[in-house]
């Protein structure tokens, strides 16, 4: 679904991503892990075009070179993005926040797909409240709901469980699993919490200082690897 090859990225003069390779197979959930500040979020932003890359390629769907596409077009190709830190539109109502997801849909749908409300009933309840007034966890749910509105083929989730109550975290996991199974969705997940990753991801990639250090089937994620790369 997504193939990242020798990607380099800089913030000013600091080199953040180094010759990074990454593969997100279709219909699977790939989990990116790594300590704070290793560049996970930066990688997601690079895929979405929020930061410029210096070199390398990001191939989507085996044919579309994302680095040559404008930011706005990427979501139109069917990429849903749940950024770290929620990034909801604080002064738009919950419903309006969700409606922004309609912009990228190709089918011209003008109503929020009911599935979103089914998944996060609190969003329907608080439809008319402004996004910024929600509690942290509610905002996180809103951010995920908003990405689902565009019914993506590739879903990028940057620490989606952050700040969400346990039962809903589990529910999100289930939804991801269902979407993968039923709709053939591909997922790129950044997650620190091992139980969640182990339960819902198919593959993992561990990053350190802007480079992938280990990767494999989730079953291969051993304690030794964890100690080596995820401990301070």
């Amino acid at each position, binding site marked *: 679904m997504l193939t990242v090859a020798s990607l380099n990225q800089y913030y000013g003069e600091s080199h953040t991503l180094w010759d990074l390779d990454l593969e997100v197979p279709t219909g699977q959930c790939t989990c990116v892990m790594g300590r704070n500040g290793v560049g996970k979020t930066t990688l997601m932003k690079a895929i*979405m*075009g*929020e930061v410029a890359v210096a070199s390398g390629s990001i191939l989507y769907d085996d044919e579309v070179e994302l680095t040559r596409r404008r*930011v*706005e*077009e*990427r*979501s*139109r190709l069917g990429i849903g*993005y749940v*950024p770290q830190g929620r*990034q*909801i*539109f*604080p*002064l*738009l109502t919950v419903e*309006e926040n969700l*409606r*922004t*997801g309609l*912009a*990228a849909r190709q089918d011209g749908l003008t109503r929020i797909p009911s599935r979103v409300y089914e998944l996060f009933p609190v969003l329907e309840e608080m439809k008319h409240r*402004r*996004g*910024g*007034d929600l509690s942290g966890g509610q905002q996180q749910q809103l951010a995920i709901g*908003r990405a689902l509105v*565009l019914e993506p083929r590739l879903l990028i989730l940057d620490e989606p469980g952050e700040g969400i109550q346990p039962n809903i975290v589990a529910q999100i996991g289930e939804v991801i699993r269902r979407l993968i199974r039923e709709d053939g969705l591909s997922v790129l997940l950044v997650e620190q919490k091992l139980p969640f990753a182990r339960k819902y991801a198919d593959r993992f990639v561990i990053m350190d200082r802007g480079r992938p250090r280990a990767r494999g089937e989730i079953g291969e994620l051993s304690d030794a690897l964890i100690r080596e790369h995820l401990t301070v």
Partner: protein
Amino acid sequence: MKIPPCLRRLLALCLLACLPLTAQAQEDDGQSLLASLDAASYAQMGGAIEAIVDSGDPRSRDWLEALLGGKLQRHKESGRFVVVLENRGRNWPVVDALTGEDLGEMSRRELDRIGINNSLRGQLQSVLAVLDLRVDDVGARREAARDLLGQVDEAMVAPLQDLLEAEGDAEVARLLAQGLAIHRLEQGQVAAVDVLAGSLNGEVRSALSSAARSDDPALAEAAEAALAGIDQKLRLNRGLETLYFGLSLGSVLVLAAIGLAITFGVMGVINMAHGELMMLGAYTTWAMQQLLPGQPGLALLLAIPAGFLVAALAGIAIERGVIQFLKGRPLETLLATFGVSLILQQLVRTVISPLNRTVVTPEWMSGSLMINEGLSLTLNRLYVLGFAMLVFAGLMLVMRRTRLGLEVRAVTQNRAMARAMGIRATRVDIMTFALGSGVAGLAGVALSQLTNVGPNLGQNYIIDSFMVVVFGGVGNLWGTLVAGLSLGVINQVLEPWAGAVLAKILVLVFIILFIQKRPRGLFPQKGRAAEG
């Protein structure tokens, strides 16, 4: 105003003789009649006018009208009287006053104007008005009867009485009766006061005021009482009038600010060139009127879309040329757009003129709508008020009901995320800025009907506009509307007792204090969301 005796006779004559003039006249008679107009003193001219009316010459009316318009002139060399058809520029097209023969163009150097002064002008108008008392059109009769208030004298009483009896229209009759009553009041008849009591007409008030100063205590007392009643009613009217003034001023503020409520309030661009965009709208109106000479109304209507377009295009140019490079640096837009505003101002000065341009008010927007004789609403302002409300409603619709409205708010609140959601931020920027600028253009079109169309137009409104937007609460269109209207009303309520300067100061102080109470304007963004 008082009419000298020579003209009074004339008025009576008009009433009796059932003009228009019918008679036989000769070429040389005309010449001598006109020659006597070209007299040394205005008093002598009065006599000459009288002679013209007396002559019954069929051309008299044309002559009098030309005289009234300052277009009756004498060729210096030949002494020939001519009527100037168009008196702007250096050379004027003229026709012979006696024969109507086209004489081509003459230099104004060769011509001598037969001048009149204000009192003669008033007299001529009265003469022409009295004639109108006999026409079929009720509106014209009312107008004529109203003009006659305060002009009636002994010679006219009898014929007016006849007219009054024959009059079918109640309003005309009432006015004629009042006209006669004023005359009787001047004669000292106390009974006349009753007819006049309650009328809000200025002439009536004038007459009663004079009577109240009279030596006859009974008359003075009656007039005093009638005046008190009138003043009572006037006070009420005055209150309504003040409210109207306030709303009208407010609507101007709203119009000036509403475009800024989009570009500044919603997009966050501190657009110092907003005023100059209004100026472009106003100049568009002027240009339209130049393109369609003689059709100021049509030109004005066409200027609405044209003004929007011109300003919107200028807005797009500003957005593309400058503002797009300042994403994330909203304060710097202040600097750049200030530069743009200087350039636009000077551009108008150099390309068009440093002087103000004349924008004509079409007939249907001139004058006022009379609610009663003490309360009239000026039409141009009434239209502007309505226009402001329309523009506001339209804008509200766009922001609430279209995708653009949602997308622009998303883009300003979190540009990166909006783009990640597939919103074409650049296009949204352009369209929104064009919309805000276009609305500024519309404001300019409206302002061209109220104030100067000149290079400084923008500067006069920019500060007020920002004040209104912020006072209403940034980002809230309703706030802009309410803020504009209420500041307008407050200003006009204060003005009569504080004076214009102090009223303005008080309004500013009010804004400062109000913001202490509500640090985020009239309609603040509340709650967590606002703290971002």
